[in-house]
């Protein structure tokens, strides 16, 4: 019997109120795209990986339509800051602050996020 060598996995973790929640392995993310994660309180987060290898997370619900779709939007950058464009009506949200770049009065929640060895 052979024992497989221990594999180190890097997990993507979201910072919730008091703890880090592991949502998936970092490998699961494609640069430039997002995935949706279900949070313990029933909310959803949209998690993204950018070209530089940084992970970002904002609330998955598009405030303009109410649909949980931001994870399916395209990642972009403007002036060096990453954003996601809603796949429905194309409004852009800054991934670090959650602020809508096309409407100052609208924003989504941004989550602290990290990639950590598990």
């Amino acid at each position, binding site marked *: 019997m052979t024992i497989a060598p221990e594999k180190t996995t890097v997990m993507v973790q979201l910072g919730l109120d008091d703890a880090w929640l592991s949502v998936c392995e970092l490998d699961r993310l494609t640069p*430039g795209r997002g*995935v*949706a994660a279900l949070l313990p309180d029933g909310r959803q987060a949209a998690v993204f990986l950018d*070209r530089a290898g940084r992970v970002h997370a904002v609330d998955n619900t598009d405030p303009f339509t109410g649909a949980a779709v931001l994870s399916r939007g*395209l990642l972009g950058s403007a002036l060096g800051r990453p954003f996601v464009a809603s*796949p429905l009506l194309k409004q852009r949200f800054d991934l670090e602050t959650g602020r809508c770049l*096309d409407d100052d009065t*609208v924003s989504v929640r941004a989550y602290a996020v990290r990639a950590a060895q598990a």
Partner: protein
Amino acid sequence: MATDTAGTAQPTLVLVGHGMVGQRFLEAAAERGLTGTHRVVVLCEEPRPAYDRVHLTSYFSGTTPDELSMTDPEFIDKHGIELYVGDPAVVVDRDARVVHARSGLKVAYDTLVLATGSYPFVPPVPGKDATGCFVYRTIEDLYAIEDYAKNNATVGAVVGGGLLGLEAAGALQGLGLATHIVEFAPRLMPVQVDEGGGAALLKTISDMKIDVHTGVGTQEIVTDDASGAVRGMKLSDGSELATDLVVFSAGVRPRDQLARDMGLSVGERGGITVDERCRTSDPDVFAIGECALAADGRVYGLVAPGYEMALTAAAAIAEESTEASFTGADLSTKLKLLGVDVASFGDAHGATAGCLDVVYSDSRSGTYKKLVIGSEGELLGGILVGDAEAYGTLRALTGTVPPVAPEALVLPAGAGAPAQLGPDALPADAVICSCHNVTKGEICEHTSLPEVKKCTKAGTGCGSCVKLIGQLLPKSGDGGLCGCFGHTRQELYEIVRVKRVTAFAQLLDEHGREAARGGEGCEICKPAVGSIIASLAPSIGADGYVLDGEQAALQDTNDHFLANLQKNGSYSVVPRIPGGEITPDKLIVIGEVARDFGLYTKITGGQRIDLFGARVDQLPMIWTRLVDAGFESGHAYGKSLRTVKSCVGQTWCRYGVQDSVRMAIDLELRYRGLRSPHKLKSAVSGCARECAEAQSKDFGVIATANGWNLYVGGNGGMTPRHADLLAQDLSDAELIRLIDRFLMFYIRTADRLERTAAWLDRIDGGLDHVRDVVVHDSLGICDELEALMRAHVAHYRDEWAETLDDPERLSRFVSFVNAPDTPDPTVRFVPERDQIKPELPLIPLEGLAVR
């Protein structure tokens, strides 16, 4: 019936005749407040209000009478104009100042405006009234010709080789008749062009298989003894021409009978005599347009002088102090007759003493250009046949000494012409739109074509100046695709093609704007570049599968999940049903899948079936069932070929002349999966009845007795556009080769999200340029375009079948990355009409900005 004098408090203005000039008069009257101070009554003889007679012939290429209409019912209502359609004035009692209409209506007038237009001149030859003889003036004339041609004629002859005669000949040819033109003068269009221009025109028109007989008169229309219908005509050279139909188009005469009956002064050769303010011999009666004999002793048969008279009369009636007057007009014209550009302007025939000519003539290509130059070097006028590109600039320069030598203005580019004179060279007071007399200076105060049209009316008459206006307007931004790329889509396409770039990041880092390099790109350039790479994939060595590698990150969500995202986050699924043909068994499978997954079903406009309400995690299961039953992706989610719609065609339909269903299936299977700047729609109709609506498609095919006609650049949607005829009577192979070239040329040169309709309107040279490139291979790229399409066809794979075969690719179809078995609880439905509809969260949508 009592005389109708409703609203006696206000003076009454009666307009007799509601053609283009009549309508322009009403607009001018409204602008001057006359509709507020007067009761305005219009008597219109034709069964429809004013329409665009200049573009009458476009009826035969699909423009409907509604589209030709120039009358906005809202305008008529808003200004309280009383418009009586189909009720001409028959008698005017000048003593009682009352107009009697045919219906018995009597209207008392204070001011009367006659805009009765003209009637077609029919030479007094025996048999001229026989069955099968027509004139070419109204929509009703067109209906009659079309009807008769379909049932009774295979050969048609037009008497008159002038402007309208050529239009009529084009119409007859379009109706499928072998067509003759009989012109008494020694050349075609004798009024507009000289001998050289006539020769160039003759060459081109003869090449179109229209038989031209010049220098002969019509002596008699020969009729069939039994039926009385036309069967031929006797010509002045003793020959006889067999024909089933005759259209008289030998000029027009002013309709001045009403004025004569009223006792108004008319000219010796007809036309109601008017002064410089368009007043007739009765100061309360005005005459405008083609019925009037202007103060310079001429009757004008063009719309622009008519419009000017309309403005003059309105100003005179409004007692404007500005001395608007009509003392004569420029007879400049630019026309496209049978696809040939013909223009003449200024002193086209060189009547000025001491003038000289500069002539360029190439009878091989049917091009003829002549400029008339005055003794001081000033441009006096000219004639352009075959290539009237420079018309707008030249006409505007008339009367001035051009800034470059005149020969440079007529030589083709590359033939020693030192400089092409652009619109920048025009002075601010150069008249750009001669229909509405709008100068360059007035146009340059605006920034967009719609704005120019709205504020100045420029470009809304004959339309010949629209291109020049476009060149005068500022270009928006720096022309770059987005904030990340300073290049246009076309430039990026060339970079990707030539440098064989297969990765977005590489393109961005090497060719992006400085500030954007190393970044992520954006939602505009990523899908655009993804589409370019996908279109070129087989030729540049990229993977054509849109879900793989870096390309996966470029696609909009619809392409990413191979389905169409709907408003509540669910997707719709559209299996391909080529040509709209489907077996009962497959239909049942679609029904079963929809039932089993609880999907909402709807028939689409493209003859297939849309299944709505699928959650992202259901897509693979749904497609497993569909692929097993032999379906493949319909690419409803892609900027790619959607459907090729068809009518049932020759196989079943008693009118069909070709197998439209087979052709639609062939085309759909050939171009399926082809990524393009925007979606592509197509249709094939089995006969000219056009049940498949091919003329509203990006490329549409209509069967003829001899093959297929190909139309391009059609569009429905927000800005409907009828497709333009690109080529006629093509064999199957010719048709496919031409579509291959057309599509690849479009993909290569269009902007992002630019449909073929907008592209054709935008691209320099328009349809003619595209025809030159794809039919005549003027750029020498057709082999390459065909090779690109062959590569596409050879490498096509069904995206859904490939996805289902690959667990890696399937892994993205999950609701939550950390809870793949939990369906998204926010995707909910409620029942409606025995199906489902999305249950939406309440989100206030008003005031939200949508980019």
